[in-house]
């Protein structure tokens, strides 16, 4: 301590000269250990799969088989149909909810309460078995169907998935509508817009910026949720994989085939979501600077 003070009094300038010193970066020992452990575990997992009793030849054989591709097509059709119904219902229910009409807004609240409260699988089965309580449907005198004829697995799955999705989507839409500044509503009214035109031209385009990320997540969720329709015999990809493995007993191989396709579709959708977000973010500073 005493020497330090003497040094300072004699050659004090030296201790402030640091420009010529070599900078040694901090070493992240903890990070390296953690990375090594995780990589080792991953290697063990890969090895387990490669030496496990998986016949990879079956995976490659069935990856592009017609039954699997037909299932993939049906999965995509179901995703689009159920999600479309969900978004349409979601927008309608959200607008009912924020409308000044107490009856409409109560019905909207009740809808969300009921269809968000029951498991999607249960709702699918309810629709599929509707014929048990309503053997026929229609408007008396005009037209009438036998319920079993129209309540096909496809229709039951679209209704079950779409209607329960509508309950979730309506909350997303509502938060989007609420995110739009009240000044925007006033400016739209001031240039003489009617309620509907204001929603379509001014409010919804701005709400979309808030709504797209969560709706993107829900579309991705729906891709996977369609697998529930296998329970009511809709031949989507998981159902078709099951049919094949019931015959050839290669259970895990076919489940891997199905997982590959789910992962593939979800990856493509994630890329698409990025571009849709960018489109609806136009005019917004934070988004543009990020792109």
């Amino acid at each position, binding site marked *: 301590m005493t020497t330090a003070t003497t040094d300072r009094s004699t050659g004090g300038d030296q201790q402030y000269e640091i420009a010529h010193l070599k900078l040694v970066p901090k070493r992240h020992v903890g990070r390296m250990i953690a990375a090594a452990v995780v990589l080792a575990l991953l290697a063990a997992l890969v090895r387990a799969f490669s030496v496990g009793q998986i016949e990879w030849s079956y995976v490659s054989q069935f990856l592009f088989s017609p039954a699997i591709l037909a299932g993939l097509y049906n999965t995509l059709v179901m995703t689009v149909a159920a999600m479309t119904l969900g978004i349409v219902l979601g927008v309608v229910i959200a607008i009912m909810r924020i409308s000044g009409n107490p009856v409409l807004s109560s019905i909207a609240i009740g809808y969300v309460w009921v269809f968000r409260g029951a498991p999607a699988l249960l709702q699918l089965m309810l629709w599929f078995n509707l014929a048990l309580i309503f053997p026929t449907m229609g408007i008396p005198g005009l037209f009438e169907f036998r319920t079993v004829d129209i309540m096909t697995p496809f229709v039951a799955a679209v209704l079950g998935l779409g209607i329960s999705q509508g309950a979730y989507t309506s909350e997303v839409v509502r938060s989007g509508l609420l995110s739009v500044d009240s000044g925007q509503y*006033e*400016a739209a009214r001031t*240039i*003489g*817009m*009617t309620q509907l035109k204001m929603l379509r031209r001014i409010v919804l*385009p*701005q709400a979309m910026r808030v709504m797209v990320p969560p709706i993107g997540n829900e579309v991705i969720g729906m891709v996977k949720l369609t697998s529930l329709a296998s329970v009511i015999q809709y031949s989507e990809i998981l159902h078709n994989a099951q049919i094949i493995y019931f015959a050839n007993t290669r259970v895990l191989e076919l489940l891997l085939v199905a997982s590959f396709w789910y992962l593939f579709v979800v990856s493509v959708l994630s890329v698409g979501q990025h571009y849709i977000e960018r489109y609806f973010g136009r005019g*917004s500073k934070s988004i543009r600077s990020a792109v």
Partner: protein
Amino acid sequence: MSKNILVKAIDVTKNYGHFCALDKVNLEVARGEVCCIIGPSGSGKSTLLRCINLLERMDGGGIWVNDELVGYRREGNNLYQISDIEISRQRRRIGMVFQRFNLFPHMTALENIIEGPVHVLGEPVKDAEGRGRTLLERVGLAEKANHYPSELSGGQQQRVAIARAMGMRPDLILFDEPTSALDPELVSEVLDVMKDLAASGMTMIVVTHELGFARNVANTVAFMEAGKMVEFGLASEVLSAPNSARTAEFIKAVHS
């Protein structure tokens, strides 16, 4: 009613619960005139303005624009509330400029201006764009046509908002504290555009704290406090020799 009176408000009353925002307020603005409404915060200036284009519904009294009763239809001894579509038809003739601009952030400056003409009035896009560019030129922003609001300064945004209001070819433009949200150095560019507009003969009702603007541009000045119209008269008289002691006190406080 005299022919050159464009806006006439009689006994306009508005309550929020027990709070009386407007208490039997009267106002008259002739065609081509500029009327400035001054007064302390919470005096009901903005509420009166918002009653004129039905952003607020009044609880009593009536407002006539162009001899047409705003928000109601008279049949015999009954007053009927008009439909939403009728209300939007009345609003087309009344422009409004807001304190916080309220430009549509997902549209460029030009798109903001042509939105009403194209999608409300049904003008062809080409015509509306041509007129929109002329309006942008008039407010000194010809080169900003394709900029989004987030790329413009506050003063530029407010000038686009004025051009948007003019795009609807209104009989009247309402200004709700148009310079209160601006940086001090940007105030004059907006006031200059408003001066030009006044000189071109546009009827304007301006809620403002800019007494200099009121003195130079306004024909009439109204002083409001606590929901009441304290004083209303020619600008020169109200600002230089007010009748009420309260008005004099307010003008003195703002100037010091």
